[in-house]
């Protein structure tokens, strides 16, 4: 790599009067259960409606009411939607965290706060806007419960005035949120107006941050990944949904239930073309999905890491018995109590090899709501085509946060129900053997109970190709070899990677899932700040395609960026790569429970590339002096 000097650029301080337009984050610190979600979503949607690229991250505790929550909205004219650690504007509503929240800000940042908190005494290098929330809400309504509900809407009014977020767009967002509840919209609007009027009369604008209209959001929607996956399941023609509640996956099934009730119940008869069962645990949830898949339904379940652990035994059975099922794993941080509401990509190895004995499972890695939708549809086709459990690995960041997305495309291909035995097929193949490889692709034909086709007794690994019980060594080995052949067949059926080759690049980056958004931004940082050119391979599925090895071959060093401690995806790659290519892999790992951010990736790559980096008060770390250079 070029080991030339990198100019040290002193950043202007943020107290500069130069306006900062559509490029900053707003963080609202509240207590959970205080009803701030409406105010936050209205603010987010209003900025979205102004055509400005926007994203949101909700950092919430595993708790119903009373613990601190931070909701961050990032507006970015360049379209970066990944997590950014630095916040320019803080709305401090939580007395417990207010002091620490203020201390964490960079100089020049803005604090809108509840006046009695007296936060302006904490620091002198910030722009403080005190707001007497209780007084203002008292003028909006006399009713105590209503006051509590609309109090947060006042900060939306204040921000509208301070930042130039159009108040009429906020009203449109309110209507969207509350539908035709006229009175509710009216009282929230009154709270907005109260905040706006207060800011107009009492707060002199002393910060540079502004939202100005753009035209970037035509044809876009706002949606979370779980809702997107739910729409995918609806469009995939799912018929059996069996699940057990677990954060952060519950909203996937709950949203799906809403859509199924709306669109899949016969209006005349009231009868449903689907069945949903809330099971007694994740073991039963997957057992039911497998039972349904065996009997010919399009079945699914959704869970998170702890549920995946419980599903281990059944997943192995479905692998050997060759039964389709779709399993959504909305990944989160580790077991039991602790950080169940924080994000991670920590289930890669677990799901790839879930269960005992020799097992391997196909995995899909959506990075966006649009892919949650399209991969959900794809997952059902793959599961039935290959008669095996298929895992869709989303995460909390994607599943539960609100993202901008292009509208979803209607499926162009008919459903692929796979090799289900019918009379014509039986005629063609002669005799039915449940585990016979008739077509040479490792995929046998299956008969479905109740179809009057020849029956078989479905069981674990102890069967011959006719589906008869067998403990013979040759039968067993022949069968597991065929399963491997089947696995090889689906390599090229899995979604292709998205590859961007930069001919000048000696450095490659591989990422998957939500890490993508931080990588997009990091690649620009690397190029703009240190002239490090990169190529990019966004993985979308396991098993990997042969293109993976070719990509690594093109580059001297390839950084695998992922959100876990143990470099799980890199390990999975190393199992398949020849040693020379394996040696080119390096890891960028992020595992704090927060979503990964571009700055973390950029700094880590620069350090590993031999640059020395130093911390800048303004912007975390910037590259400084090319050091020893790369190898």
């Amino acid at each position, binding site marked *: 790599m070029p080991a030339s000097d990198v100019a040290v650029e002193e950043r202007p301080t943020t107290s500069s009067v130069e306006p900062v337009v559509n490029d900053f984050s707003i963080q609202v610190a509240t207590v959970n259960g205080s009803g701030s979600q409406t105010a936050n979503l209205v603010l987010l949607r209003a900025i979205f409606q102004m055509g400005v690229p926007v994203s949101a991250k909700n950092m919430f505790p595993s708790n119903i009411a009373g613990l601190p929550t931070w909701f961050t909205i990032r507006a970015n004219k360049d379209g970066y939607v990944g997590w950014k650690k630095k916040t320019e504007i803080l709305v401090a509503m939580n007395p417990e965290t207010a002091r620490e929240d203020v201390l964490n800000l960079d100089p020049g940042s803005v604090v809108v706060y509840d006046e009695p908190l007296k936060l302006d005494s904490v620091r002198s290098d910030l722009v403080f806007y005190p707001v007497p929330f209780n007084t203002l809400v008292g003028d909006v309504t006399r009713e105590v419960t209503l006051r509590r509900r609309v109090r947060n809407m006042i900060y939306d009014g204040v921000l509208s005035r301070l930042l130039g977020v159009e108040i009429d767009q906020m009203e449109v967002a309110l209507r969207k949120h509350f539908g035709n509840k006229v009175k509710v919209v009216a009282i929230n609007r009154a709270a907005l107006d109260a905040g706006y009027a207060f800011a107009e009369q009492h707060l002199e604008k002393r910060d540079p941050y502004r939202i100005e209209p753009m035209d970037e959001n035509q044809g876009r929607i706002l949606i979370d990944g779980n809702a997107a996956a739910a729409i995918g399941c609806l469009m995939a023609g799912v018929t*059996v949904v069996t699940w057990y509640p677990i954060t952060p996956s519950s909203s996937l099934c709950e949203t799906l239930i809403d859509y199924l009730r709306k669109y899949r119940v016969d209006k005349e008869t009231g009868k449903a*073309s689907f069945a949903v069962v809330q099971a007694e*645990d994740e*073991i039963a949830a997957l057992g039911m999905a497998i039972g*349904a898949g*065996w009997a*010919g339904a399009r079945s699914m379940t959704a869970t998170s890491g702890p549920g995946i652990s419980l599903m281990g035994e059944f997943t192995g*059975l479905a692998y050997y018995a060759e039964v389709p099922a779709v399993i959504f794993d909305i990944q989160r941080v580790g077991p039991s109590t602790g950080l169940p509401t924080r994000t991670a990509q920590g289930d890669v190895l677990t799901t790839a090899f879930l269960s005992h004995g020799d097992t391997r499972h196909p995995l899909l890695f959506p990075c966006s709501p649009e892919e949650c939708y399209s991969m959900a549809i794809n997952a059902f086709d793959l599961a039935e085509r290959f008669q095996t459990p298929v895992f869709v690995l989303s995460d909390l960041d994607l599943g539960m946060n609100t993202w901008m997305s292009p509208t979803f495309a209607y499926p162009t291909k008919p459903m692929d129900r796979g090799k289900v035995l019918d009379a014509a097929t039986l005629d063609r193949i002669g005799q039915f053997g449940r585990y016979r490889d008739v077509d040479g692709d490792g995929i046998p034909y299956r008969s479905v109970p109740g179809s009057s086709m020849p029956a078989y*007794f479905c069981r674990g690994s102890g069967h011959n190709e006719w589906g008869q019980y067998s403990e013979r060594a040759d039968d067993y080995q022949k069968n597991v070899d065929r399963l491997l052949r089947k696995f090889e067949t689906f390599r090229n059926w899995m979604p292709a990677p998205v590859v961007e080759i930069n001919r000048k690049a000696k450095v490659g980056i591989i990422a998957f899932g939500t890490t993508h958004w931080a990588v997009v931004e990091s690649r620009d940082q690397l190029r703009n700040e240190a002239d490090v050119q990169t190529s990019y391979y966004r993985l979308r599925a396991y098993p990997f395609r042969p293109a993976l090895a070719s990509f690594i071959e093109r580059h001297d060093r390839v950084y695998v960026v992922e959100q876990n401690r143990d470099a799980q995806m890199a390990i999975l790659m190393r199992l398949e790569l020849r040693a020379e290519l394996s040696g080119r892999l390096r890891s960028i790992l992020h595992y704090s429970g927060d979503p990964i951010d571009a700055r973390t990736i950029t700094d880590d790559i620069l350090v590993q590339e031999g640059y020395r980096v130093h911390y800048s008060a303004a912007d975390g770390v910037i590259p400084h002096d090319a050091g020893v250079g790369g190898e």
Partner: protein
Amino acid sequence: MVTATPTPKKKTNRLGLELPVYRGSKTTLCAGCGHNAISERIIDACFAMGIEPTQVVKLSGIGCSSKSPAYFLGSAHGFNAVHGRMPSIGTGALLANKNLVAIGVSGDGDTGAIGIGQFIHLMRRNLPIIYIIEDNGCYGLTKGQFSPTADVGSTLKTGVVNELPPIDTCALAIQLGATFVARSFSGDKKQLTAILKAAISHRGTAMIDVLSPCVTFNDHEGSTKSYAYAKSHEDPLEELDFVPYFEDIAVDYEPGETQEVTLHDGSRLYLKKLDERYDPTDKMQALRVLHETHERGEFATGLIYVAPMTDDFLTTLNLVDEPLASLPEDQVRPPRSVLNEIMASLA
């Protein structure tokens, strides 16, 4: 209602099928195992009731009992699930195709220990499945350890004494809302066949605990699940006569002595009471009888509890008439207009 079948020349049932159609592969269980007798009774009952074998799913967990579905109804699909998890597989299969006749075979370990959770929720849901526990009080396939239905004081072959109280699966099932609960003995051919036929006619979970001695590990003196003990301690509640809905047979009986129960499909069960107070539609009485007989060291057999007209799980789901598994694409993939409507709501 349905044509009465005249006495056939060749022994065929109302579908015109012969008995061998209902057989399965050769058993690999020990000679004399009670489970084999139960398989025979299942074959008899399915034949007599004229069940279409291709519409049956046979389900099981793990253990000696769970091997037995291979030994009856060879032309039916079967699923040998993982240990203790047959209820969830059965639930899924029936969700996919509500027209299937589900016969589940479990054991006392498969149900009472590892599978107690799924058993409990199966009973709560009242899924239409015949759930048979082949109960021998021990783990046969792992060579004779106690199971949770072993009685206090019962001994292993090695002399080890069981110290823990047994789970009474029948009492548990009744308490959990099961709608058909019976107990029988693998050696009682007449009673077990009648119960199985009635179970086929029932719409809902039919839970049948069948004492089925393990001739290899639990048939010795000191065991309360041996043949000898079962024979001498069985306490039948009634004599059962089953009349299927498709046979027009009048039964004379003395009111007061015999109770008639009409099952979901119109079949009738005549219970000639041995204890004249006993009423199997009375839940509290059922629980009391189970408790009292157990206290006496006996076990009550027969139809212990029945609530024949309760809605089953699939009915409450209000599914379309055709099985979900075979719905065509245009019935499960909403049209483009639906996606457009959803997208518009999110823009």
